[in-house]
């Protein structure tokens, strides 16, 4: 059994891992874990990852969770092009810095934007107060500004002249609020041109393929009561 990746392209970190593996021609078996159906909460999946989260990687006996860990593992194992995670000490530190920063900032804002703007009202049938939505979108705004001012600045990519893991992780996060109908790139020309560069570097077909699910999420039929009951505790814990 070769490499297995347990993924659902609805999830931002899963998209980053998927794009990365495909872009770098890493052979893997895709094991779909359907989040909307609650498959990640099943006993079967708990055997793979007791934390019940995707993405997860299985390389023979070695099971690994956490998308950044997975991306770094793949980079090193397959000796991928240096620009993804440079050998140069300071260039690499910049990538590490972004990957650490984004957890509690961009990742959080993008996740909450998706759920507050769309998934709660449309998929789960749970109203979200205008104040909550406004606060979430305001937070997203602040985070996007930081992304531009502190990380991108006047560079081609977030951490330098070439695409790195930082850009991949960031772009897949930003597609979450895009999927919810948020105008992330409008009025932000710097970020918009960065996005174009990232898409071009990744490959537009691959980028489109990876984002089909999130871009269609607004068309998800409302969850039936059983599913909703199953998913609610997980959702509430996730977007805290």
């Amino acid at each position: 059994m070769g490499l297995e990746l347990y993924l659902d392209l609805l999830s931002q970190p899963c998209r980053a891992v998927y794009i990365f593996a495909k872009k770098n021609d890493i052979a893997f078996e895709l094991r779909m874990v359907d989040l909307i159906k609650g498959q990640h909460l099943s006993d079967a999946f708990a055997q793979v990852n007791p934390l019940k989260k995707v993405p997860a990687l299985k390389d023979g006996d070695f099971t690994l969770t956490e998308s950044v860990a997975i991306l770094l593992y793949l980079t090193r194992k397959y000796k991928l092009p240096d620009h993804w995670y440079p050998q140069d000490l300071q260039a690499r530190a910049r990538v590490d810095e972004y990957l650490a920063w984004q957890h509690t900032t961009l990742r959080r804002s993008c996740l909450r934007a998706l759920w507050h703007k769309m998934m709660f009202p449309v998929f789960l049938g749970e109203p979200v107060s205008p104040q909550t939505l406004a606060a979430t979108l305001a937070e997203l705004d602040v985070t996007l500004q930081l992304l531009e001012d502190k990380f991108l600045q006047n560079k081609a990519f977030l951490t330098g002249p070439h695409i790195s893991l930082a850009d991949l992780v960031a772009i897949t996060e930003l597609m979450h609020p895009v999927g919810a109908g948020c105008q992330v790139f409008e009025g932000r020309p710097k970020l918009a041109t960065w996005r174009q560069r990232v898409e071009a570097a990744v490959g537009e077909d691959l980028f489109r393929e990876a984002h089909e699910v999130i871009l269609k999420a607004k068309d998800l039929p409302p969850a039936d009561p059983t599913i909703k009951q199953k998913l609610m505790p997980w959702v509430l814990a996730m977007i805290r």
Partner: protein
Amino acid sequence: MGLELFLDLLSQPSRAVYIFAKKNGIPLELRTVDLIKGQHKSKEFLQINSLGKLPTLKDGDFILTESSAILIYLSCKYQTPDHWYPSDLQARARVHEYLGWHADCIRGTFGVPLWVQVLGPLIGVQVPEEKVERNRTAIDQALQWLEDKFLGDRPFLAGQQVTLADLMALEELMQPVALGYELFEGRPRLAAWRGQVEAFLGAELCQEAHSIILSILEQVAKKTLPTPSPEAYLAMLLRIARIP
């Protein structure tokens, strides 16, 4: 000018970097930036780190934030013993796996008691009991995962030896401990892990690094804490508002 580290030992990630540097004999000029006074939001400090966060490393013109990035940078630059950040593919992956989970489930959560008991009251804000309870539950849940998934039957969180993961974790756990939370009660494996990590680091270094946080409640009682600056006040309010 050599390496400069801007830090406040009140902060968990500051302590992790401090301990790592001291343990490994890494020469650093320490620049204390008083969080409670709000010096991290001062014009001077924002020139150095526009995010106004600690710790921040300055290596000549190179400025680096985020404690895990700083730890990795220092471990590579100063070629610290391999066990901290193992070169072995899978061993290193385990460190990153822990750090990823830590960012989601430990960071943010374990700092809340300080906000509730010390920093909130300092600016006249009381965090609702409901949130305090929710935080307690989150802490308990995280400790369970720490014990079951990361420690398991291993001596340390990411393997057989001390790594950056253990340092990051220990310093986060010290925060609620300093506020009177009995994190290690009924958790013998976790207590043993803590003992091992502290023994490895050395009692003197631990005492030195932990003295500020461990004396925080005493400072509250004696009313010797400084007053936050206006710049810090807003940042503190925002932070408290984010407590789930």
